[in-house]
């Protein structure tokens, strides 16, 4: 039987506010346990929450970024359950009236095509603390530094049909939130994690199959692998005459499998009700309009502009717009050198290669966009040829020539790489090569005219060698042809 996979994602994004969603405590990562938990985060008797306005602004920016409805009124609810790292015995969240209603996200697939995935809604909530099991002699410790950190939970419709689409969706969300600057998107530190709902159904069937929810998947790669494993598990189960049960599962990256955590019968009744300590959030149109007017250009728009205005291929436009940092770097290179295609080639070629080799991100690049832009300019204006440019780039990468914007000129000068375009000098070199290569000249002369084009390569190589790579290859080519043909 042919099976179709149906996937929906709940992505939890930690918002980059300085203080927590309902208290003034800091949200910085990595502090001593419980050093960033104030009376409100500890849930001491008598304390009350006060909503952080910047968390609201960030949630609204996200909503605008996915073309969602921003309702005038949203309401915080309490989700009640007991757990040791949940200080109040409830999580303040938004169940019935979320801050962001339906929207959509454009995802781009490897073949360069795009699809739209619908966002059901996004709501604000507070994070819990975490349990610590190490070095506590069999006891469990509780660190409440993370308790009260603002999260935006983005819930998709079950619109994805493959693990690749799910990963592309997660990447699209990642790039939207980082473009907006509302999250650092750091998955390793837990700033972005997701729950994946997966089900399978016979192709052509309209009704959804029973789904399993895979909790807390925290990398793009794990999302793909967890889904692949889960899809295979469900199909095998059904084909063997079994039935998928609705349950929560955990993905174990080491074993590369998902395991049952709790079934539907064991699920909590969260007893949601409106939080009486917080007033409904009322957003007036002017506030929303102001945020809308100040939105940065988002990945999908940027991709379209790169493709249609700058003439990049769909693939290049997609890669270069995937992260805001990459896009900004590319645009600075392009603005410096004035040639989008050359800028794209260099950023994706030499630069990305070097970054990958050393495991660096674009933010850590030792070569600035202005340095690279000038280097490309020097190729475009024939100061150096492509080969020399690669040498200059490597030197720049190693820090040679300093980090001033004009380091390309410094290096070209110091290394004597300036292209020789003086035709007299080139002709002299050509004459010498011809004089030293009588056999090759003879072969050239005896060859059919249509085969001579190929044979000229030898002479070009010799001339370039003689010039230590600085001769302008086009000029060498042209002059050689003239001189050799004159001998025939």
């Amino acid at each position, binding site marked *: 039987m042919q099976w179709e996979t149906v996937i929906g994602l709940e992505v939890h994004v930690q918002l980059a506010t300085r203080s927590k969603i309902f208290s003034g405590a800091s949200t910085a990562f990595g502090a001593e346990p419980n050093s960033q938990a104030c*009376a409100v985060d*500890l*849930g*001491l*008797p*008598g*304390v*009350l*929450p*006060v*909503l952080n306005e910047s968390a609201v602004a960030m949630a609204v920016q996200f909503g605008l970024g996915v073309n969602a409805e921003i309702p005038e009124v949203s309401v915080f609810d*309490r989700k*009640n359950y*007991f757990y*040791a790292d949940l*200080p*109040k*015995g*409830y999580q303040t969240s938004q169940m019935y009236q979320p801050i962001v209603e339906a929207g959509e996200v454009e995802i781009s697939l490897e073949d360069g095509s795009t699809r739209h995935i619908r966002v059901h809604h996004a709501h604000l909530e507070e994070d819990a603390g975490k349990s610590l099991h190490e070095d506590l002699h069999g006891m*469990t410790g*509780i660190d409440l530094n993370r308790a009260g950190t603002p999260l935006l939970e983005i819930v998709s419709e079950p619109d994805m049909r493959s693990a690749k689409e799910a990963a592309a969706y997660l990447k699209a969300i990642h790039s939207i939130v980082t473009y907006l600057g509302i999250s650092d998107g750091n998955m390793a530190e837990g700033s972005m994690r997701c729950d994946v709902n997966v089900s399978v159904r016979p192709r052509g069937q309209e009704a959804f199959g029973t789904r399993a929810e895979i909790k807390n998947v925290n990398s793009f790669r794990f999302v793909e692998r967890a889904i692949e494993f889960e899809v295979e598990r469900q199909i095998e189960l059904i084909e063997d005459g079994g039935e998928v049960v609705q349950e929560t599962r955990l993905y174990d990256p080491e074993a590369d499998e998902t395991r049952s955590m709790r079934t539907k019968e064991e699920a909590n*009744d969260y*007893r*949601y*009700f409106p939080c*009486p*300590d*917080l*007033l409904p959030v009322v957003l007036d149109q002017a506030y929303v309009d102001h945020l809308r007017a100040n939105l940065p250009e988002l990945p999908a728009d940027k991709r379209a502009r790169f493709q249609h205005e700058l003439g990049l291929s769909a693939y290049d436009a997609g890669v270069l717009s995937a992260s805001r940092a990459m896009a900004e770097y590319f645009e600075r290179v392009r603005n410096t050198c004035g040639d989008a295609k050359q800028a794209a080639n260099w950023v994706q070629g030499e630069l990305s290669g070097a970054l990958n080799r050393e495991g660096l991100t674009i933010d850590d690049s030792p070569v600035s966009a202005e340095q690279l832009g000038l280097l490309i300019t020097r190729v475009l204006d024939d100061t150096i040829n492509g080969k020399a440019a690669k040498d200059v780039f490597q030197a720049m990468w190693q820090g040679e020539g300093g980090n001033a914007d004009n380091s390309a000129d410094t290096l070209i000068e110091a290394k004597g790489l300036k292209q020789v375009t003086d035709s007299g000098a080139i002709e002299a070199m050509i004459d010498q090569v011809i004089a030293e290569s009588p056999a090759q000249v003879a072969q050239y002369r005896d060859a059919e005219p249509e085969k001579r084009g190929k044979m000229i390569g030898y002479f070009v190589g010799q001339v370039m060698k003689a010039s230590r790579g600085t001769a302008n290859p086009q000029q060498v080519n042209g002059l050689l042809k003239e001189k050799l043909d004159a001998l025939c």
Partner: protein
Amino acid sequence: MHDKTLTELATGLSAGEFSSRELTQELLGRIDRLDGRLNSFISVTAKPALSAADRADATRADGQAGPLNGLPLALKDIFCTRGVRTSCGSRMLDNFVAPYDATIVEKLSEAGTVSLGKTNMDEFAMGSSNENSFYGPVKNPWDPSAVPGGSSGGSAAAVAAGLVPAAMGTDTGGSIRQPAAFCGITGLKPTYGRVSRYGMIAYASSLDQAGPMARSAADCALLLGAMAGHDGRDSTSVARGVPDYQSELDAPLNGLKIGLPVEYFGDGLDPAVEAAVREAVQVYESLGATVREVSLPHTHYAIPAYYVIAPAEASSNLSRFDGVRFGHRCEAPTDLIDLYKRSRAEGFGDEVKRRILIGTHTLSEGFFDAYYKKAQQVRRLIRQDFLDAFEEVDVLMGPASPTPAFDLGANKDPVSMYLQDIYTIAVNLAGIPGISVPAGFAGNRPVGLQILGTHFAEAQLLGVAHQFQQNTDWHLRRPAFAEESA
């Protein structure tokens, strides 16, 4: 000194007749000698009280004294007080020393008042008789066989017995007004949002409100001015200016339109209570007010709606008492669930458990719409009843409680206890202010007249109450307990 009003004591302090230290010492002595019979205090904080009194005397010597400087009072043990056990009347918090001050504690302290200690209360403010305290019941100073009312029973009894001239209470369904009525003192529940709830241990967040309990409306006006106002730490506190509550105390009553809700004079009302209340209304008529009957048609839904909403909020508010970070923890828990179960089973009393169970049930999947949602709809109707009534009259009057203080142990059935709050509970659901003032006796037990106004009408209510007290002396009566022991 012990039977003077706050206003009189303020005059005495500013005239230099006595110092705050002398006054504080005198009252601490009375508490020490007499409270063993009343049990109105859970904690007496003599040392910090004397330091605060000395600071107040120094402030006065510097010419910096405000109107409340040096005045002693007591705090219901629901207000977090830095460095002092804050038990909320529960075994659960018997070991809890608050690391911070509630906003009103901070404000009263900044105003120079001297807290003598923390008063007894029904556990987590759940009760109408003060019999639900882990620290034992409080006796009514007018008759030790009677309850003082609840949940602010310790505050009411301490003021009535002359142990302290004023005390802070909280009112979720009548917990200031009913004990004030039972103990023959004046107690004001302000409009919801008028006074910050920060640091006040939550019972039912959408209903809880702190207010003053004292010997006169003028004293309550003095205190409310210091307590009220917006607090950045409480989103439900209202950003609205605080009027001078004393300036309207002498507003004439001529032309005041009084409404008597017919539903507040029906079955179950003790005839002696009714007689006292009707007599009080006549006093108002003699002072130029006009009286008419009005109807609050949804009154009989108030108790059922309250007993859905309040326990629902309580079941969630009390989840933080889990034995993990503070409060009672059972011995040698075997795992997390065992820790929760036994800590909570041991830490909470029966009435608290009952309300947690009710609230958990009404919020459960499948019951939420039928209970919680419906109760919220009823709540809106009840609020509308009041708003409609205030289109026609200025204030409403009626009894604060259907009976005078009942005997200790007389109300064993929870539902009959709940029905005690029939005249007070709707006020919390509507969020409006209410005050109870002494208006006579039923036998040897005081009767309270309840006066209700529209949202933020505290100044008017205090004036209406003050005018009554200018023309009657019920609020000046003192129980034999206070006098014979003096």
